[in-house]
C-alpha cells in the first residue's frame, strides 16, 4: 500500500465518527450549499492531514477547516450574486432546499439564517459539534465568559425566530405551540 493511500485510510477512519456531525454543521451554516462546502472542506482537510501531528485534536481541527471553508464560500458568493441564474438553476436550487428537510428542520434552518455568522457558528459548534465552551473559546481565541454570553444571547434570539417561524408556519400547531403563542402575546401585552 502506498503512503498516500495509508494517509487517506487513516483520515477516513478518524473522519467516520464525526461525519454526521460535520455534515449537519455544514447544513446549519449554509443550507443551500452545505454539500459543496463539506466536500471542499474534507478535500482540504485530507490534503492538510499529514501536517496534523496530534490526532486527538482531529475533530476541532476538522470543524475549524469547515468553518473557514463556509466563510470563504460566503465571501465567494458575493461575486455570484452578480451572475444571473437561469430558471433551470433556480428550480434545482429550490428543489434542493425544499426537498431536504422536515418542517422542524426547515424552521430551525430558517431561524438560524437570521443569526449573524459568528453567532450561528458558535451555537452550531455547541449544539451540533458537541464542543465544550472551553473548546469553543480556544477555537475563537476568546475568553470562556465571552463565549458563554454569546451563546446565551444566541439562544434567546434563536427562540424568538423559532417562535416567529412557527406562527408563520402552515403546519397545524400542537397544543403546546398554541399555548406558547398565547404566553408570548400575554407577555407582550404586559410590556
Amino acid at each position: 500500500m502506498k503512503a498516500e493511500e495509508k494517509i487517506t485510510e487513516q483520515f477516513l477512519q478518524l473522519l467516520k465518527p464525526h461525519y454526521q456531525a460535520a455534515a449537519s454543521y455544514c447544513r446549519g451554516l449554509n443550507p443551500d450549499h452545505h454539500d459543496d462546502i463539506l466536500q471542499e472542506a474534507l478535500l482540504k482537510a485530507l490534503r492538510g492531514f499529514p501536517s496534523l501531528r496530534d490526532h486527538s485534536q482531529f475533530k476541532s481541527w476538522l470543524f475549524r477547516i469547515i468553518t473557514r471553508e463556509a466563510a470563504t464560500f460566503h465571501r465567494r458568493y458575493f461575486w455570484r450574486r452578480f451572475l444571473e441564474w437561469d430558471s433551470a438553476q433556480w428550480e434545482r436550487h429550490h428543489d434542493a432546499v425544499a426537498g431536504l428537510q422536515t418542517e422542524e428542520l426547515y424552521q430551525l434552518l430558517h431561524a438560524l439564517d437570521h443569526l449573524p455568522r459568528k453567532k450561528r457558528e458558535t451555537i452550531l459548534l455547541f449544539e451540533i459539534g458537541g464542543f465544550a465552551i472551553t473548546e469553543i473559546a480556544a477555537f475563537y481565541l476568546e475568553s470562556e465568559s465571552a463565549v458563554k454570553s454569546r451563546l446565551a444571547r444566541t439562544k434567546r434570539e434563536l427562540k424568538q425566530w423559532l417562535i416567529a417561524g412557527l406562527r408563520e408556519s402552515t403546519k397545524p400547531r400542537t397544543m403546546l405551540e398554541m399555548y406558547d403563542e398565547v404566553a408570548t402575546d400575554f407577555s407582550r401585552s404586559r410590556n
Partner: protein
Amino acid sequence: MKSQQTFPDPGISREDDPFESLRQAKPSRSFQEMAHQLAAASEAHQHRPRTQLGNLAMPVRVLLSRPALAAYAAALLLIGACNVPTEYSKTIGYSMRVSAEGNPQTIVEKVKSQAGEALSNVEVTIDQLSDGAERSEMLFTFSESTIDHQALSRQVKALEGVQLVTVEPIDHEFRGNLLTGLLHKTFDVEINITDLTEAQVEQAIREELESWGLDADVTYSRSEDEGKERIEIKATIDDTTAVKEPVRIKLVDENNPEDAQVKKRKVVRKKLQQ
C-alpha cells in the same frame, strides 16, 4: 415539563430539542460515497500537472474569495495608474503624398470633399518638365486619426494622372500617466470668439491657456479660401507645464451659427529651445 418551566416567558415550546432535527438530518452523501470520492480526488490531486497558470490562479482565487480585498487592490491600482508617469505614442493624423501628372486641382478638390474638416493642410509643388508637361507633388495633412485613409488613398489612386500615393501616420509622443495613456485623455479649452478681431482672439487663447498654467505662443489667422473660411491656430506650449495631457482648443462663434460648429484643433506640444 420544559414548556411549563419557560412559562410565562416566550420560549421554544417544543418538548424536543430544536437541534435534534439537524443532528438527525441525513447527509446528502453517505460516508462510503464521500470516502470513495475523497480517495479518488486525492489520487487525482497527486497526479495533477503543475503549471504556471495554476500558480497564477492562486492570487485570483484569493481575490475572488475576498471582495473587500479585491476592491482595495483595484483602488490601489487605479491610484497607481494615476501617479505613474509614462510616455506614450499616439497617431494624431496622417500625411498623404500624391504624385500626379497634369493639373492637381481635381485631386485637391476630391480629397477636400472626402476628408472635410479632417484635412488640415495642403502643400502643392508643380514642376515644369523639359517636354512642357507639368508634374505635381501634393502633401495632404489630416489632423484626425479616425479618418479612413485607406479608402481615401484608393479613391485618389483611381483618379486620372495619379502616379503614386503614399500614406504615413503622424505619431506624436505624449507625456502623462498610465491612465491618460490608456484613455488618451485630452485637455479641452473652450474659448468664445464672438465679435473678436484676430488679435483679440489670439490674446483670448493666450490668456485662457495661461489661466490653466499653460505658457504658450499663439498665432491665429482667418482667411477666405475659395469661399470657405479657413482658421489656423498655431500654439507652442512649454513642455514643462503642469498640464501633461494633449491640449484641444475649441472656438465658438455665436454670430456664425453655421460655422459655430465647434472648431477643434489639437495643439502640438513642443519642447522650447533652451
